[in-house]
């Protein structure tokens, strides 16, 4: 009985990481970054088959709140130039001019072929024009610093557990997930709280529009009371901080039937007021043991 079922995309999947999969077949990754309007950071990354523009509004490498959007154009690249159209959102036509400076990433063990990344530094020159949907940010450049990294991926063996849990240690973690997919658009919500710690909320959206793939994510933290539930997991109430708005209520009847309702919505970059509650969503409420 075959028909492949695609897996749900992890809620906080790094799209750029997906683009750097071994299947890319590209020899190098071209990248440059610059500032955009309204506090966004713009990053352009090209592999053999795709070019993405990422607009980010977050601080630090491990932010507790922020907003991201990736626009992915599926185009073939040649050499170290970046040429891609993003339709109404803009266009990249940049050529790489190396400065001669090369840096190297750390060596990794057990690799097939190269065991580290090499980064050639230089400048991209040409034309870059970008405006996010509805003008939430914009950027343009004709000359910007950047890098060309090779290879596009390392094929290295990894050993040991990436994560180890200690059941029973410390306060229990309660988590809630909701997902909805309709045609080419999917929305997911994840909430988590451990004891009286602040609650974490993540909302993601995946969609394709014509020749563009679009991935959006927001991350927010709220007080413990913004994600309430009971030990029997008979209900959950979510009232996350901005860019979320409204509230969501999960009720589980004795029969096991669930209802997920309310006014909960989120404003992604370029996609304001996206509903996150209602019967279209499938939900999951759990507690660690």
């Amino acid at each position: 009985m075959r028909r492949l079922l695609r897996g749900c995309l992890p809620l906080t999947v790094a799209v750029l990481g997906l683009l750097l999969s071994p299947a890319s077949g590209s020899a190098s990754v071209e990248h440059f970054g610059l500032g955009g309007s309204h506090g966004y950071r713009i990053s352009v990354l090209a592999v053999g088959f795709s070019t993405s523009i990422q607009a980010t509004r977050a601080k630090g490498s491990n932010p507790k709140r922020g907003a991201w959007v990736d626009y992915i154009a599926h185009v073939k690249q040649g050499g170290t130039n970046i040429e891609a159209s993003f339709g109404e959102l803009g266009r990249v036509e940049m050529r790489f001019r190396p400065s001669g400076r090369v840096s190297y990433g750390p060596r990794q063990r057990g690799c097939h072929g190269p065991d580290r990344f090499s980064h050639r530094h230089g400048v991209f020159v040409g034309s870059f024009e970008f405006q996010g949907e509805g003008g939430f940010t914009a950027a343009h450049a004709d000359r910007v610093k950047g890098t060309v990294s090779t290879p596009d991926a390392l094929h290295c063996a990894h050993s040991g557990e990436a994560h180890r849990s200690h059941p029973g240690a410390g306060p229990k973690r309660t988590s809630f997930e909701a997902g909805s997919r309709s045609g080419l658009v999917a929305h997911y919500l994840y909430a988590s709280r451990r004891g009286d710690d602040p609650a974490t909320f993540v909302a993601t959206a995946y969609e394709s529009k014509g020749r563009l793939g679009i991935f959006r994510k927001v991350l927010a933290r709220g007080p413990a009371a913004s994600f309430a539930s009971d030990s029997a997991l008979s209900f959950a109430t979510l009232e996350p901080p901005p860019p979320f708005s409204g509230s969501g209520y999960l009720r589980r009847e004795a029969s096991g039937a669930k209802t997920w309702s309310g006014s909960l919505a989120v404003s992604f970059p370029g996609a304001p007021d996206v509903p996150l509650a209602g019967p279209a969503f499938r939900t999951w409420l759990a507690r660690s043991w």
Partner: protein
Amino acid sequence: MPNVRRVVAVCALLASLAFAGSARAATETIAEPAAPGFSQYGVIFGTDSAGERFRCSGTSVEAPNLSLVVTAGHCVYDEGRWASRKWVFVPGYRYGERPFGAFVAHWIGTTPGWLHHENLNYDVGMAVVGRNERGQTLAAAVGADRFVSGLSPAQDFDVYGYPVARPFTGATLQRCPQVPFEGHGFEAFTQSGPLDLAIPCEVTGGASGGAWVISGNRIDGVTSNGYGDDPLTDYGPYFGKAVARLYHEAGRVR
């Protein structure tokens, strides 16, 4: 970030609930799949090299060897394993009947993109089959659709297949008539190769490899995959250069 196990658990939950809350799309049952115009479509019964049995859909397609079946890549090669020699195409299958007999594959192949990376943008497979119990070639017995490639993705498709997972039974041929191209799946953008195609058609397991037909008898795609939480959308690879190369290679196999 949820751990992998939790994501898988949610996926399983969503998949199990998928049919509970959704309305059926306009899938129609073909009562006489052995009739002319339908007999080129059939069921594939296979066993992989680990002994696991599977079921797919396939189509007899015009080729110099008169014996070519087009299907999905994962119906001939899946998770690092080729299908074994127990790979049988039964055209016109209906309620266990085999009106044209069975055609056993002696050659199977897939695209490099599927073989090496299991890239869904290249999920196409082909098989060359022997003669049936009556000594007929496949094309002589049931006819064949015409292979086309390199066309615009913006087509209206008749989608055929034998879905067997709920709410279907796999007993006879199903068709989604004249469904339009809707766009590309998001994940297609994260893989190399031509972007896949999405269409509004409710099919389930067993429909893999089923034909996407344009202009009555031209096969321009096959069913590949779908999401558990959206059973109403079907995804399949674009028939481009890699698929055309596979077709020309398979069509010459004797």
